[in-house]
């Protein structure tokens, strides 16, 4: 009985039954050739330009248009202001090595450039305005306010999936995560709801403080820096998106000399940006936009893409 197995593999102790061996000898039935890489992977993984992966749409990525996520837009603006040639590609958090966007894949050959950076500890204090009140207001406005749910769907939900169930779950998860982020910074242990009025009031104070800081500067950039810095880019990331996405026309008589937020538009962050101080933030936003997106050098980069 042990004869059939020992014909092929004499050293094996347990004989394999003949019919089984016949069956397995047929496998693999057919070996396919290795798949070629997808066509877009050529541009996604290689190239002489560094690649910044951000939240954006395919169309906007081709045009190099601003991303709709403040964290991504900050670095996109900073790189453009520093004159670095790079390209952007749409991505999601799942693709990132750190679990969050943006991330940068450097080019094969790198050259170093230095960007101006103001050396002052006051910057840390003003950076906290962006990290706390303004970020919280942005999260509240985009994720938790029900009147912006169409916008949220368009930016984050609809590109992710076409299934209604997945979209509902995703929306719920995003809302929950945004709420957790806000609650974490306000240290309210037993309260599990967000106090939106206080958030918007704090954001209004923060915008006014930034406008006063900008008015102090002689050069038009924060901290009297001769050229726009990372801090300008991070302010622009929020003001630009609020003016573009969360704005609505307001009546001039609603604004009481810049002392109070316009009450009918209390939730319109774009209106807050325009009316803070004497409008310095909107002017700053326009300057950064012109410098980063409308200069001929920047257009040349887009020509390469």
């Amino acid at each position, binding site marked *: 009985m042990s004869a059939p197995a020992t014909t092929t593999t004499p050293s094996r102790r347990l004989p394999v039954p003949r019919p089984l061996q016949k069956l397995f000898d047929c496998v693999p039935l057919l070996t396919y050739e290795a798949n070629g890489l997808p066509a877009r992977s050529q541009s996604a993984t290689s190239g002489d330009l560094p690649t910044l992966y951000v939240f954006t749409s395919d169309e906007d990525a081709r045009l190099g248009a601003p991303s709709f996520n403040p964290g991504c837009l900050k670095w996109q603006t900073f790189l453009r202001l520093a004159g670095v040639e790079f390209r952007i590609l749409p991505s999601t958090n799942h693709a990132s090595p750190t679990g969050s966007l943006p991330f940068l894949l450097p080019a094969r050959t790198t050259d170093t450039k230095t960007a101006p950076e103001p050396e002052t500890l006051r910057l840390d204090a003003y950076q906290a305005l962006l990290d706390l009140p303004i970020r919280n207001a942005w999260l509240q406005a985009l994720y938790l306010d029900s009147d912006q749910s169409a916008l949220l769907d368009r930016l984050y939900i609809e590109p992710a999936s076409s299934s209604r169930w997945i979209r509902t779950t995703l929306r719920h998860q995003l809302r929950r995560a945004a709420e957790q982020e806000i609650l974490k910074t306000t240290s309210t*242990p037993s*309260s599990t709801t967000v106090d939106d009025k206080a958030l918007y009031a704090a954001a209004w104070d923060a915008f006014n403080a930034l406008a*006063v800081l900008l008015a102090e500067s002689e050069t038009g950039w924060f901290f009297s820096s001769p050229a726009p810095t990372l801090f300008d880019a991070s302010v622009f990331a929020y003001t630009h998106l609020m003016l573009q996405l969360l704005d609505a026309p307001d009546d001039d008589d609603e604004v009481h000399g810049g002392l109070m937020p316009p009450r009918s538009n209390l939730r319109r962050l774009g209106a807050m940006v325009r009316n803070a101080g004497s409008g310095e933030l909107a002017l700053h936003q326009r300057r950064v936009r012109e410098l980063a997106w409308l200069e001929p050098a920047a257009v040349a980069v887009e020509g390469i893409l």
Partner: protein
Amino acid sequence: MVLELHVWGPAFHLPSIDAECLAAVAYLSQTTNSAEYRLIQSSPSAVPTHHLPALHDLTSDTWTSGFGPITAHIRAHPPPTFRDNDASPPPGSSHSAQSRQRAAAADATAYSAFLTAHAAPLLALSLYVSSANWAATTRPAYSAILPFPLPWIEPSAVRAAMADRAGHLGMSSLDTDAADAEKGSGDSVSSAGWVQVPASLRSKMAATSVKEALTPEQASRIRLDGMAADVLDVLAEVEWEPASATAVDEATTTTAVRCLAFAYLALMLLPDVPRPWLKDVMRARYPGLCDFIGRFAIDCFSAGGAGGPLPWATSSSGGSSSNSVGGVCARFAHGLAGEMPLVGRQWRRWWTQRGKKQQPEEQHQKGLGKQTVVTRNGSKNKDVLLLAGAGLATLAVVNAAVFWYRALPPFGAPVQTWRLPLVSLSTLGAAGAMFASVLSDVE
């Protein structure tokens, strides 16, 4: 007597254990005569906003919570003796004075945000996340200021929130309680093998490396020092006190942000903790900040200071029963319900929203949209009804459970029994019956 400030109670020789509450107390004592307001020792479960500090304005019967909204409310509705050093200068004053005033206000906003964003997580690491400091200092302090069953519930919730807040700093190694709970009790056997060394000997033998012999605070001391320096460098640069008492209007900071900075720094410096890394850093490298804390505390809270002794009151004049036995029991039950798995979160969310929804229209009419305002009129009866209903429902569930338990057979009793049928001749069909009758006849 128009204002009531509800705060966490005193600890560490300071009027409050919580930084924002301490700042609110300091702000009121700096700006308002002590006859105009009262301080009430409380906890979040006793106020309708579920967040401390909470200011109850008795004239308009509104609740405002959070340090920023409270200072805004007091400035908008100042009590008669309110002294605001930060008021905008008169219109005739020079242009430079006005711009300096605006710059000071902008700086104050920025430093308030900085303190909330960065000093609060640092303080949370020192007092709440670090297991040794929590067990030896902070938890006993909370136990001392809360009425009896509440220390079982509320301090742990505060600690969890504070740990969340400091989560981005990545220093969870300080929390040895969590590490112990993860390890469980089973690993002593697995690591020791078949030889069972008594635990007291084993810990000394196992601590062979330097890293194991160090406390978590010592092991990560360099990172902790770096974090403390990141925050305190920024704060040490600011001139927190006006150069002289007469130059108040030339101050670079406002009263509100000064109070907030004092509150966070004092809680970093003053508590007597067993692992005093933050205290050591402050004493060694930032003597200016330590001096500021000392002077400010004397100015604010000593009997001969600006505001006189603090006007503590035992209960609020609104007839609030939150500190009575029944009130404390209700708060305890509410806290228990909030801790229940699965449903606790929904319960708390629903409860908070319910408190906030009460009469939002009236609040709009009053034009107080900027603050967190919760108005509460005659909702006491509803609360009692609701609590009674919830109590009845709980009672019904408990009764049903008891009934079901009583209906169970006694423990150990057989649940099923099989009996062997009695085999006799009469069960064996017609022949059997015949034989049976014959036999019975014979007998």
